[in-house]
């Protein structure tokens, strides 16, 4: 044994970098990726564009019966705008964004050759997946939060917002209405996490981020079609898209919790399934 090797062996080797350092580095990297920023900005503009549209349409559509059309519901009911924006985006835009971030997280790093660098550090494979899941979940949360903020501001400024006229006909105070907006944001975030978990699982099986997006898009479309077929109603509780419909319950008064709770459980199942598959794959994957 050479003297140098002895010295090197005498010093205890630190086997892991601190977790918070890895988490911060991951967020820093994800939030500096131009794609991420563009998608967040685009999502933030969805409720703004809708708000402007409804404000313009609302002024010329006073003749129609109020409360029968979306623009009728939203007119003078500005706090409904962030809820509208989030629920509409949950049907396609947000799940696709979540899937894209999950695609970049593992498949993207794999195709850029950067996953190797992390594995060689080494970061530990289970920890790698945990950090990746954290990064995707955080970006999702940021996107939904930004949408909620821009939607609320736009709604209040353009459509007016003292309180909220619910779908059940009652009126909520501003505090209650904002509570409903926050609840919507929380529910939507969890449902996007579920999609992202599945997408992350797919992401561990391929080097091509586009494959993940294609699978996510295909799944959403197929599930939506299956969900519309009455003869298959036995299948509906298992579809990830079914759970999304429960989010609209937030605009009823009093708040029906059954559907919302079931929806959350469905999302939780998908999160567990997604991360279990991803973990099993990451532990054995060739880097």
């Amino acid at each position, binding site marked *: *044994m*050479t003297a*140098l*090797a002895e010295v*090197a062996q005498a010093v205890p*080797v*630190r*086997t*892991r*970098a*601190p977790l918070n*350092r*890895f988490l*911060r*580095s991951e967020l*820093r*990297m994800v939030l*500096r*990726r*131009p794609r991420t920023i563009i998608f967040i900005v685009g999502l933030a503009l969805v409720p703004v564009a809708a708000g402007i549209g409804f404000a313009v349409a609302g002024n010329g559509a006073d003749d129609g019966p109020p409360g029968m059309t979306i623009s009728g519901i939203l007119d003078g009911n500005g706090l409904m705008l962030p809820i509208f924006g989030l629920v509409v985006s949950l049907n396609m835009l947000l799940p696709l964004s979540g899937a894209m971030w999950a695609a970049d997280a593992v498949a993207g790093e*794999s195709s*850029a*050759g*950067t*996953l*190797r*660098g*992390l*594995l*060689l*550090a*080494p*970061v*530990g494979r289970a920890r790698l997946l945990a950090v990746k899941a954290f990064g995707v979940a955080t970006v999702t949360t940021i996107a939904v939060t930004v949408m909620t903020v821009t939607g609320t501001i736009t709604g209040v400024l353009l459509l007016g917002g003292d309180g909220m006229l619910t779908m059940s006909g009652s009126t909520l105070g501003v505090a209650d209405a904002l509570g409903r907006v926050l609840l919507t944001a929380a529910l939507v975030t969890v449902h996007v996490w579920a999609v992202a978990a599945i997408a992350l699982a797919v992401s561990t099986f391929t*080097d091509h981020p586009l494959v993940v997006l294609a699978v996510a898009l295909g799944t959403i479309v197929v599930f939506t079609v299956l969900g519309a077929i009455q003869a298959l109603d036995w299948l509906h509780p298992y579809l990830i898209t079914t759970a999304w419909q429960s989010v609209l319950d937030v605009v009823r008064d009093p708040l029906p919790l059954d559907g919302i709770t079931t929806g959350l459980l469905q999302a939780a199942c998908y999160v567990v399934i997604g991360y279990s598959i991803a973990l099993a794959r990451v532990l*054995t994957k*060739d*880097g």
Partner: protein
Amino acid sequence: MGPEQSGPTPLAARTRGLRKVYRSTVAVDHVDLDVPVGAVLGMLGPNGSGKTTTIRMLLGLVTPTAGEIELLGAPMPQAAATALPQVGALVEGPGFHPFLSGWDNLLRLAAVEPQLTTGRIRPAVTEALERVGLADAAHRRYKGYSLGMKQRLGLAAALLVPRRLVVLDEPTNGLDPAGTREVRTVIADLHAAGTTVMVSSHLLSEVEATCTHVVVLHRGSVVAQGALTELLESTDASIVVSTPDVAQAVETLRSARIGARPVPGGVRADLTTTTAPSVVRMLATAGVSVYEVHRQRTGLEDLFARLTGSLSTVEDLGTAPDTDHEGVR
């Protein structure tokens, strides 16, 4: 130079019966590799000979189908957590985020580097960039880097902290002659500091200039390994005779039971059973015009040609950039 040992040499890396099968393709088979501590080991082999696959298994990136691996005395991949922090590696070309600068890319790797304390991250990144001559381009986006700069950044990542073993897969790929010289200097510095270095290369001259040990891989198997000087000494001596009368010269030598074969511009004579003066005398007596006689340089190239048994692979090895990825990931 590396310290002289008595008794069994300690090994920085060791494999026994290493085998990797991708579906129906056998990428690596029966690889018994010994990397002595302090050595600079050159891994040679034509494209697809299993160099990169062997390195990836050694570093725990790929699970072997069969066989044992020891890295710095610990079994891989079980001991990855303790062994890998002491290993720096550039595998399968540099892999970085195109939208980040070289500095930010290294910062990210430094953040997950177990050996670096948080306060040492920035100085370590600065030093690594300076060491590979990238300090000026540190804050430019990786996307805009030339191939050589990308390769240098990969080298910087491997050298982020002092290592006991540095593994460089095709480190000179895409580098200009100046860059190649710098890599040679880096390897020499590492060697002088007692670091074990494994370097795979398709440039035979490169390996000959920098390595103390060589392993030659061919079709997934080790066909030769050992100290470079020993391997070269075992090569048979020969001379090349420049002559226009090739056919006559070959016939003369062969009738005297001396191995001879035509080479461009002359004849190559085997000296295992005879000496240079007697070959020349024999040819002169037979009336062959001899313009020049020179000792055949028994370089790595000859060794390699003999071991892998085909000239085409040598040409392959000498000119084609090695994309030794075995096509599977």
